């Protein structure tokens, strides 16, 4: 049983990892095809996992509705919206002329209406709330408390001045200073981070492939 529960997953991870690693260096057509094949496989597995997610979500909301727990009405909204959207989409998708045509279920007219008039305003608005949050975060964070904080503050101020269309800022070369900040110190910092991250990723990946890192498999035997 340990073989099935522990060893086989580690062997699968090892094979999948090594194959993808070696594939990168082999220019054969078969090797290129393998990359796209495995990518598709990962997508397919992910698609099945949605059932697990769905069960978790419905379990929570339907549980609330059954118990008439506080806020069960909101759970009802979620469930009804989910069933309606999925139902309309699935039915619309089934009506397409032939299974290979480019008109996907998600591009049916009804689903597009929902996307444009419900998803878009909701998502766009949530995204735009960042405008308010970034202002309040800037107000709290940009204080000259320490030397480091002052550097952060000054860099931020210079960059923000570029957007202010007052001639004096252009005259003293704010856009040029910005270019320099972004192409020199900013890039240096980002490169430093990227190099370090790359080594971490290589090390972590190797530990996974060789079965040293196995937290992701969970516990038990």
């Amino acid at each position, binding site marked *: 049983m340990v073989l099935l529960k522990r060893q086989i997953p580690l062997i699968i991870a090892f094979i999948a990892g090594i194959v993808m690693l070696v594939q990168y260096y082999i220019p054969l*057509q078969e090797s290129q095809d393998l990359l796209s094949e495995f990518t598709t496989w990962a997508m397919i597995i992910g698609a099945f996992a949605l059932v697990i997610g769905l069960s*978790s979500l419905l379990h929570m909301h339907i549980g609330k509705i059954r118990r008439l727990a506080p806020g069960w009405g909101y759970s009802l909204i979620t469930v009804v919206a989910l069933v309606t959207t999925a139902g309309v989409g699935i039915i619309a998708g089934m009506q397409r002329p032939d299974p290979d045509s480019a008109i996907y279920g998600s591009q049916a007219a009804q689903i597009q209406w929902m996307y444009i008039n419900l998803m878009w305003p909701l998502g766009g608005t949530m*995204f735009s709330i960042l405008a308010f949050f970034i202002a309040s975060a800037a107000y709290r964070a940009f204080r000259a408390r320490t030397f480091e904080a002052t550097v952060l503050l000054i860099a931020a101020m210079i960059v923000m001045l570029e957007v202010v269309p007052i001639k004096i800022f252009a005259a003293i070369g704010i856009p040029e200073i910005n270019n320099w900040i972004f192409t020199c110190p900013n890039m240096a910092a980002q490169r430093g981070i990227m190099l370090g991250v790359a080594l*971490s990723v290589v*090390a972590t990946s190797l530990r996974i492939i060789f079965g040293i890192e196995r937290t992701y498999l969970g516990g038990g035997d």
Partner: protein
Amino acid sequence: MRRLLIFLPVLLAAAIFITPLPAQAQNNPPLPAVTELEAQDTPNDSGSSILVTWKAWPNETSETEYIVLVSGAKDGQFFEAAVVPGGLSFKSDQPRYFGFAEKNKDYHYASVKLSKEEVKEPRKGIFQGKDGTEYFFKVRLRHGEQSSDSGLVSAISSENWFDKGKLNNFILMIIFGFVVMWFIQHAKKNPNLFIRKISGLDAVDEAIGRATEMGKPIFYVTGLLPMSELPTIASVNILGRAAKIVAEHDTLLKVPCYDPIVMSVAQEVVKDSYTKAGRPDAYREENVFYVTSDQFSYVAAVDGMMMREKPATNFLLGYFYAESLLLAEAGAAIGAIQIAGTDALAQLPFFVTTCDYTLIGEELYAASAYLSREPVLLGSLRGQDIGKAFLMAVLVIGTALTLAGIPFLKHLLTPF
């Protein structure tokens, strides 16, 4: 008027002299044939193409054309396979195939495509070659009305088993792999490797303790990438360590998930931590739950939960996009202690400014080693440090050499 008439012949003469009329071109010496013609299998590819190279005619202009002709037999019918206009397609454009030699600027190349399979119904007048067969090439130089053909060369295309253009990548992988593995083995024998202080991780205990004192929940977000991505794996590893401390403190831990697979793994990991802490009874599966796989509905839901349940502590570890600030600022508004960490360059500024502690880039990956002090992980970390020292040396030497006009290391590191 008379003056104009006198000038007219002069102007005419000048006009003839300036515009290169075809009549004049005919008086030119005949065009030379192209020299140093070579044909070779395209290296580092999946077959199906042959590279033809030749020395550029020194007098070429944009009017000049090189026509690459191909045939299956020495004396067979030749087809047009490629046309290279003057001034384009130099060997120096393709260091992947020809390297960085200075003289590559004086040579043209053309790539002739072949097909994998035998062509069943060849279209008339068009060349359709097949992999693995010998083909003969010549280059016709054409300029104005004139043209001249070169001699013949031949080549066979084949598949390559190793991409030499990726040799630098391969060697680096082997070096880093070896160093990391060696230090992991080393650490098994010498388990007490030193690791510097990471203040964000020292605060984990305190942050969890605070939630316990206040009797409020802890939120843990693993980021928005799927399970196959490394930042998510790093985050799940930290979740395992944090959950153990949480279980010991008997505090409520909530993990709202963006991806069903990540949720499944997180459930297993948290359950395992509770078991290890001796509190398997305290684990509730519904506290590690799926929300949605859409960025902004996810963030709306998590922000809403934060406002209602007012967690004392937020962990935001993994890879984030724009939602980083939406989560962190909502957390700041309710006064939660926030420990964030990501290798998403674009989101680091927001975590650094709004969270109490931020794990920057590599620190996210170092966290599980730091929290667990497992020799294997510490050894791996030591290997990464050696890798960094190596990269620092390469960068310093490479930059110095390149600035001095010797781009040797730069070329060596160029990826293809």
